[in-house]
């Protein structure tokens, strides 16, 4: 699975980091999110999917590879 955060849409709500702490990192200065790595390790896929559903700005996009 690949993950991307649309930096134009992200407003720093921080829910993704709360839900999938190993998959997202937040900017120190404004709290906006970016993926730790584009490729999501299999054991984090569920958490990343939950982060997608929980993003208030709908700013996280995933692409199922396999």
């Amino acid at each position, binding site marked *: 699975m690949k993950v991307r955060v649309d930096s134009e849409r992200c*407003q*720093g*709500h*921080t*829910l993704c*980091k*709360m*839900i999938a702490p190993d998959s997202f990192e*937040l*900017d*120190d*200065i*404004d*709290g906006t999110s970016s993926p730790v790595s584009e490729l999501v390790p299999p054991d984090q896929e569920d958490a990343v999917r*939950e982060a997608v*559903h*929980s*993003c*208030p*700005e*709908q700013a996280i996009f995933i692409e199922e590879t396999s």
Partner: protein
Amino acid sequence: MSELIADDERKNNRYHFDRHTPQYRLQFEKVTEEMHRECPVAWSETYNGHWVAAGSKEVFELARCPAVSNHHDLTGETPFKGISIPAAKRQSGVRGGMLEMDDPEHRLYRTVLNPYLSPAAVARWEPFIDEIVRASLDEKIESGRIDFVDELANIVPAVLTLAMMGIPLKKWAIYSEPAHAGVYTPEHSPDIDRVVAMHKEMGLDLLNSMFEIRDNPRPGLVNALVEMRIDGEPAPDMEIAGMLGLIIGGGFDTTTALTAHALEWLSEHPDRRELLSNERDTLLDSATEEFLRYFTPAPGDGRTFSDNVEVEGNQFKYGERLWISWAMANRDPSVFPDPNELLLDRKGNRHFSFGLGVHRCIGSNVARTVFKSMLTAVLDRMPNFRCDPAGTVHYDTIGVIQGMRHLPATFTPGPRLGAGLDETLDKLQRICDEQELARPITERKEAAVIR
């Protein structure tokens, strides 16, 4: 007429919406269900006429729409009236800080505040917050009685906000009471003169702090605002004053309201309380988001259309006013199954309680951190607390803040852990000054050390 549909056709979804009446609070779920089913965007004749967005999809699109403006034109020459519907009677002659600005102006001010309020910046304050909570609870722990509003949830956000601003902590009461009473006291109340007088005192102290810090800089949000430059010039004093008022308004009563409602609910649901306490490692985050969704302390914001625009099939015209209801969007069953149930482990909880788009509540990280500190300390030290419904006073109306005036509770007394509030505030002031805690994250990375 070709592209302009007649007004009555545009406004054929009508709903008499008056969120400032006690009935709206009492019938919130019924009104919300009706609006979701029949509207979910409606024209209301109330307050000189305005649109109301209740559906999650419509709220999502309108809050992020470039033709929807936050701007407040104080001259009254244009229809831009900012975020209050109706306009506040006690006009202070200043805009409501960046919340009543559009980009790019809004962005200038927001950029200045970000490094003080980001998740990393707020995390540094955790030991400081825990210490205010500890001292507030210690004041009451031996007695077995506390008012969670007056003696906890009013104090902690106020002290922390002043600390972040660079204003002396011992002034918290000058700020806390007017910030709180100013929201719940209606214009016709016999108490209004006293509240207005307190508000003036607070406003004066804010202005004095601004002048004082300009002359003798000390770290904090006030300093950041007086030092900022726009095209090489300082920000206008009145805009800084508006920003400071916004920080107080945003920082105080909202977190108080969230905490009080959560504690009241947990008292009514002791099995959920025990579960949350026992499984806080996995439940605290999701429960916090669910309390935010369910109670939506700041239930909505006003806007003005800056252009003719069609959104989700509705046609809006330049100059029309709009109420974006975060609270009603938070109960939309298409996003939140069983929306009127409070589920501590709710999934996919993309709630609207901090707003959406570029104006996302800049204090959201502060709110969560302060709330979690207060909640967990109460669960640890007063695990069997029982709120007293007879003494509980909710705000009569939830048009501005869904808040509470009093929430008395009893619990099994316990031992004090340290000094009382006054002594603790003296100590925390010293720590604040020595460690320069109110510096931005760009200048100081370390967490506060409480000795």
